[in-house]
């Protein structure tokens, strides 16, 4: 059997086609772009909530989409162990849907931040980081206005090893100087307790081809390769 992936499209999504391109042409996996109302979980082995916006992001980024029927479908996948990832706006949706802990607030600079950053891998036991090593440094771009991760229970996240990525310098040191948005403890991505759902503000789909990277790296591919490996080991086994 071959894995089949869904990339959801909400009104306002704008990284959906980039994600489809990478999955189909770089990772070479069967992928559908699905309007959120048409999404049926039974057809897919994994789902990606791409970046952009959703429903105008009125009230708070992601909250309206978090109440959509597509999220109820994604919840079924979450519960039976299939991989679910939220990138940027997708991360905001997954925290508002309470698939993931914490919340994403307006950047402390009050500005939209768009640049390449480094992440240090803190947990390589998730469905989207199993092709990385703990301590690896990832080249990847961010582009967001509301990416300041906040939780009122940091200790629990640390104890449960739910912090997957932190913003860092190129050596992997997480210092305030390399925190682009004021995120608590430099947190860039977190996972659920079961490790099959992660959310992150940076964009792996924009870092999967050397021609797009200032350092000619392809670190974004590792996220999608990890997902496919996880599907073969845990979903299609």
């Amino acid at each position: 059997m071959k894995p089949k992936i869904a990339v959801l499209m909400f009104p306002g999504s704008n990284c959906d086609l980039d994600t489809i391109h990478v999955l189909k042409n770089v990772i070479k996996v069967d992928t559908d772009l699905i309007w959120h109302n048409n999404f049926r979980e039974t057809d897919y082995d994994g789902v990606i909530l791409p970046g952009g916006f959703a429903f105008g992001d009125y009230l708070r980024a992601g909250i309206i989409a978090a109440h959509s029927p597509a999220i109820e479908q994604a919840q079924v996948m979450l519960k039976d162990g299939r991989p679910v990832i939220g990138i940027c706006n997708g991360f905001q949706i997954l925290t508002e849907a309470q698939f993931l802990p914490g919340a994403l607030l307006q950047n402390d600079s009050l500005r939209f931040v768009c640049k390449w950053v480094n992440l240090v891998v803190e947990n390589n036991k998730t469905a989207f980081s199993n092709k990385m090593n703990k301590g690896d440094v990832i080249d990847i771009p961010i582009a967001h206005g509301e990416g300041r991760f906040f939780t009122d229970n940091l200790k629990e996240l640390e104890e449960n090893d739910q912090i997957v990525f932190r913003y860092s310098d190129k050596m992997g040191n997480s210092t305030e100087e390399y925190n682009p948005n004021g995120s608590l403890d430099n947190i860039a991505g977190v996972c659920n307790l079961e490790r099959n759902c992660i959310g992150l503000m940076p964009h792996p789909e924009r870092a999967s081809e050397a021609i797009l990277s200032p350092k000619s790296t392809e670190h974004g591919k590792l996220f999608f390769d990890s997902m496919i490996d996880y599907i073969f080991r845990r979903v299609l086994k």
Partner: protein
Amino acid sequence: MDQFEFIIEVSIENKPAARDPVAETIKRDLIAKKGYDMVSNVRSGQYLRINIVAENESKAKEIVTKMCNDLRIFNPVTQNLTILNVNQK
């Protein structure tokens, strides 16, 4: 039972532990620079005015509080919700 229309005003603001850069900027770059040194703190937030039909004031407040919790109109991870005012229309 008779039903009455109430107007409930609600504010949503970040919890004290979550920084509020909007209010920090208003205070630092506007208030403090224009000589209002007596202003010691500012917090920003969202304001909702909700018209609701209910039997009485306490029932109206109960419904609005439950609605805001159930639908996550405020995010309890980062925000507090306060009912500012209830008026019968």
